[in-house]
């Protein structure tokens, strides 16, 4: 009890220490250009701020110093009714450019739209380099740099005479861990080598994107893996990897599983469920990664927002809440580090398991069960 009391006093004292700083930081949104109704303005600000950070945008907003936004403009590539257009996003700031403008509200909120003959907003074919695309490119470059840096070491050094150092020393244990524990553990025999590059790429791609998403400033901060389009592509790749190279046994298990006949003959209950499962598995992968990362970002942003929301409640509460939100923000950031790794690991592991299921039963037919189990045991020994 004494201890808790001690912590509590320290906590409150620290909270009061933060007071002046919190007051200053709280002053900026209040000083904003439009503030007719504080309460309303605050809540709208928070919402748009939240979605602005989590969502995508045509420019890369870094920060705001005074009234000046610091923005990296990104190229917009659009095929509208008047043909292909390619220009920097900064041109959109002063009203429509070549009939194109950012929609405000409505169905296409925040997206580039144009007006058709009847005055309705329609969406042109849009492959702009948005913030998320730019983030993906940066992260992809980081992944390629890391892995090629590692493989370069192996090209230049004799692996039998030297222990890997530097970049290779960091990357190699992770590669070995994923390759031996996850991939070889899930995919039987000779198939594991075929799928290892894909699964390792997925792992490092997701991991780097997750970690870069936690960093709040450029070049991090793009919410890539927290965007469903990104996870959709990843899940689609796993879907292709699982179903396009599956063996007969896998398809037989789906359409004619080994269950009592009445579960599949008059009404194909189990086959229909299994068939749905083909799609729900990658769908779950997609949603899991997307939801975890997006939720993590949303929670951290919410904690930061608390500081600004509580400004109007007076310095005491605001100061305390500032301390709490900073404390929980730090906590959440550490948690996010963990989640970044776990989600990359889980995505890779489940992909490996699904791919493994698509190749199950091959050894059983040719070599017998005992041998296939034996083939797996060296992997366990190596651990």
């Amino acid at each position, binding site marked *: 009890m004494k201890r808790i009391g001690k912590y509590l006093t320290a906590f409150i004292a620290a909270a009061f220490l933060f007071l002046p700083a919190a007051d200053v930081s709280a002053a900026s949104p209040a000083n904003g250009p439009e503030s007719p109704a504080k309460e309303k303005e605050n809540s709208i600000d928070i919402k748009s701020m939240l979605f602005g950070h989590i969502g995508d945008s045509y420019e890369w907003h870094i920060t705001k110093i005074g009234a000046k936004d610091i923005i990296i403009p990104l190229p917009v590539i659009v095929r509208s009714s008047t043909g292909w257009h390619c220009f920097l996003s900064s041109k959109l700031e002063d009203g429509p450019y070549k009939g194109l403008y950012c929609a405000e509200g409505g169905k296409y909120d925040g997206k580039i739209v144009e007006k058709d003959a009847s005055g309705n907003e329609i969406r042109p074919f849009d492959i702009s380099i948005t913030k*998320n695309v730019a983030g993906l490119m940066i992260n992809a470059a980081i992944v390629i740099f890391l892995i090629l840096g590692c493989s370069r070491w192996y090209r230049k050094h004799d*692996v039998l005479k030297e222990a890997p150092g530097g970049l290779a020393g960091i990357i190699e244990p992770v590669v070995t861990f994923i390759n031996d524990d996850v991939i070889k553990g899930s995919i039987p025999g000779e198939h594991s080598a075929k799928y290892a590059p894909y699964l390792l790429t997925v792992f490092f791609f997701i991991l780097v994107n997750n970690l870069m998403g936690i960093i709040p400033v450029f070049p991090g901060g793009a919410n890539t893996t927290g965007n469903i*389009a990104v996870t959709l592509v990843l899940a689609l790749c796993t879907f292709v990897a699982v179903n396009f190279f599956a063996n007969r046994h896998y398809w037989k298990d789906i359409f004619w599983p080994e269950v009592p006949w009445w579960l599949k003959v008059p009404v194909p209950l189990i086959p229909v469920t299994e068939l749905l499962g083909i799609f729900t598995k990658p769908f779950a992968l997609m949603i899991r990664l997307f939801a975890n990362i997006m939720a993590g970002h949303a929670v951290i942003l919410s904690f930061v927002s608390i500081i600004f929301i509580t400004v109007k409640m007076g310095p005491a509460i605001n100061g305390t809440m500032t301390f709490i939100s900073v404390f929980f923000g730090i906590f959440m950031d550490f948690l996010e580090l963990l989640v970044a790794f776990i989600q990359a690991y889980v995505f890779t592991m489940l992909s490996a398991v699904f791919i493994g299921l698509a190749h199950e039963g091959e050894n059983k037919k040719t070599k017998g069960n005992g041998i296939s189990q034996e083939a797996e045991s060296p992997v366990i020994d190596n651990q």
Partner: protein
Amino acid sequence: MPDSGLLFWMLVIFIIVLAVLAKWGFPVITSMVDKRRKYIDESLGLAKKADEKMANLLKEQARIIGEAREEQNKILKEASEAKNNIIRQAQEQARDEAAKIVAEAKTRIEAEKESALSQIRSQVALLSVNVAEKVIRENLSSDARQQELIKKMVEESLKIEDNTVN
């Protein structure tokens, strides 16, 4: 809804990353790691074998030393036996030789004795013949004279015999 532009770019970026890493990245790393693992396994196997060999060598060494020691003991034993044998044989031989010499000497003595006796015998016969001759030739008158004469003759004949024997 996922944005089509982002979808497109993500697909492009991911496929490029996958292609680059699958070609030049991961296979190199995994194959090298496997290579090293194999090498380590082999080295461990070799070390184990060397250990076993070493143990075998030690055993062999102990065995050889034991055998040598046994051999040594055997040889020593044999040598001492041989020595004893030789001594015994020599003794036996010497004894035999001595016995033979003694026997030879005995037979020679016997023979000498025999020949001496036969000579004596013939001498005595000769003497007796001579004595008888003399007795017969001379006319003996008295016993005393006869005794003296016989004595004289025996002495003569003894002298003669002595000369002939020697």
